[in-house]
């Protein structure tokens, strides 16, 4: 039979997470909207609570927990920060830290991971370019070998955490082509430090949500990196990058579930208080049905999310295949953003005109979860993955 309970450690962790969020995160979220980058003291607080190396090998300063525990952190952070900026910082660092931990050279791991875990530096992901996002095989950024170094040329765009990496330090796990005629089989994954790197020129964009984490791009002009920054083998980067994406997508499902469940709680409190036509609006079926439908969806999303991360854990232990992981993760992410934004949209609707003001905290969550129909892989691509698993690779349109 299925055992739906979290372990005692996971329960204890959630309890501590809730307390941590109540005292360290919630009081700071209002100010977060003003800054467009993650304040250093928040990164330091996350590090002090030891959240930034949860699943990383203890040899490099992490705690070596399972991935479900990271899911609990993502869910609780999203309940605390409606702009979802802190959850994004957490999920990106966790997922790409994991890729460095798994595929990095010993030298790179010792150099990069402890600093990210103690909050001195950040880790991001950079695959998207101005002209390509989903279609990674068509990317233009190139990497070539020169002696004991690699040289990179190209550009990346719509990348989270560029300002933080430029200012505080750190870098992005980056994908580039080494053997262009081999498409996705000719790509390398590597770590690209941004701060003080000669040949990196940043640009910034203003997203409509997640306003406390920066988003931007960078030109990469003859940038040299040492050989030990390569992650995995040459020309096999496309495969390694997906392990990070899958983890990030699973965590996103729980960020969406956390943000939406908090919004629904706000909505419940409101419809129990607000009166129209002589009754609390919570007494009207038109509102109750929406509440019930959204509750079912968000609970289903939560279960899809934890099931996906459980499958990810199973694969780490050799008990599930990569295909099992791809399917479970894509299922969760394919509905995460849509179900969450619809639920939050309903909560805003219940609050009438107030719901459409900037004072309403739920609109922040709505703008934030909307990003996840794109970030870390679009909704459509998730559906393609599900269909690919159901129909077989020969049914991929672009093969």
């Amino acid at each position, binding site marked *: 039979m299925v055992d739906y309970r979290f372990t*005692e*450690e996971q*329960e*204890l*962790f959630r*309890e*501590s997470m809730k*307390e*941590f969020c109540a*005292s*360290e995160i919630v009081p700071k979220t209002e100010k977060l909207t003003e800054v467009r980058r993650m304040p250093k003291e928040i990164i330091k607080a996350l590090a*002090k*609570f*030891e*959240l930034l190396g*949860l699943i990383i090998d203890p040899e490099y300063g992490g*705690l070596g*927990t399972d991935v479900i525990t990271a899911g609990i952190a993502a869910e609780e952070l999203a309940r605390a920060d409606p702009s979802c900026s802190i959850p994004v910082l957490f999920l990106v660092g966790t997922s790409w830290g994991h890729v460095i931990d798994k595929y990095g050279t010993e030298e790179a791991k010792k150099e990069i991971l402890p600093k990210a875990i103690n909050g001195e530096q950040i880790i991001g992901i950079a695959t998207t370019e101005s002209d390509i996002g989903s279609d990674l095989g068509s990317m233009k950024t190139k990497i070539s070998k020169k002696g004991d170094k690699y040289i990179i040329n190209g550009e990346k765009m719509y990348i989270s955490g560029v300002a933080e990496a430029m200012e505080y330090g750190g870098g992005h796990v980056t994908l580039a082509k080494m053997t262009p005629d081999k498409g996705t089989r000719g790509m390398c994954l590597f770590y690209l430090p941004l701060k003080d790197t000669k040949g990196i020129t940043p640009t910034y964009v203003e997203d409509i949500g997640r306003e406390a984490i920066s988003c931007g791009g960078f030109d990469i002009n003859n940038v040299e990196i040492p050989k030990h920054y390569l992650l995995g083998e040459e020309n096999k980067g496309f495969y390694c990058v997906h392990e990070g994406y899958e983890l990030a997508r699973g965590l996103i499902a729980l960020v969406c579930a956390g943000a939406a469940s908090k919004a629904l709680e706000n909505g419940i409190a409101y419809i129990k208080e607000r009166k129209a036509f002589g009754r609390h609006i919570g007494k009207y079926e038109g509102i109750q049905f929406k509440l019930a439908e959204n509750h079912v969806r968000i609970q289903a999303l939560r279960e899809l999310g934890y099931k996906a991360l459980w499958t990810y854990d199973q694969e780490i232990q050799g008990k599930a295949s990569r295909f099992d992981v791809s399917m479970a993760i894509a299922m969760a992410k394919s509905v995460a953003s849509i179900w969450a934004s619809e639920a939050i949209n309903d909560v805003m609707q219940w609050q009438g005109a107030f719901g459409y003001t900037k004072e309403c905290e739920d609109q922040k969550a709505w703008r934030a979860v909307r990003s996840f129909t794109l970030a870390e892989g679009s909704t459509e691509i998730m559906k393609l993955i599900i269909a690919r698993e159901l129909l077989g690779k020969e049914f991929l349109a672009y093969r």
Partner: protein
Amino acid sequence: MKLIACIKQVPDTTEVKVDPKTHTLIRDGVPSILNPYDQFAIEECVRIRDQIGDCSVSVLTMGPPQARSALMRCLALGADEAILISDKAFAGSDTWATAYTLSLAIKKIGFFDIVFCGQQAIDGDTAQVGPELAQQLGIPQVTYVEKIEIDNKNKLTINKQTEDGYQILEAKLPLLLTLLPPTSFQPEHPPMSSILKAKRKPFNIWDVETLGGDKSRFGLDGSFTQVIKTYTPPKRGECELIEDNPKEAAKKLSKILCKNEALTKR
């Protein structure tokens, strides 16, 4: 040195609602938490242990099996071992029977230097268990403790809160303290690594047989008092907050008092 902390799992009273008709507390579905005063006690214990070295912290509670989670939290906060005193025979204990049971457990541990208790539990608010436990152990006690310092000769300097300030007391060991929120340090969250370690620390369950003692003094039989009903007194009137500078506030207040005929205008 040996420090012992006595803790209790309580319903989160910030979540407890009151039945509007009967005024009794609705406890169903209310999460259980570590009594906040006891958390201060644990944190103070751990701080002192870390300061003096060669010292360990045992944490005990008398409660149902579910109280394990409160003890796990104490282990996560840094305690070294946990003891859950649990048996149907202890059900219905009042503060005196509880103190007797705890005293047996402490005697079974054998040696100790300081026993820490929270000032009170937020569900009953009696503040009796600590003092009664000191009585049963035959050791001195200091209540309302807000700050503790220990020197290298193990002499304690204690700030005890009073109505108009605090007293500074010195004490020799062994001794029992009941703690208020600390004034000398900021309580911290246990980091994730100590949560993981908690699971690997010794955890013992002691039942009535393990404790020994006089069975007629346990549980309901050993209790001088019984809780018949818990309720919140009904609200007696509305409260209005006047927020203004003193002059304006006084004017508004006198107006309201006149309007309600509490004052008459001459």
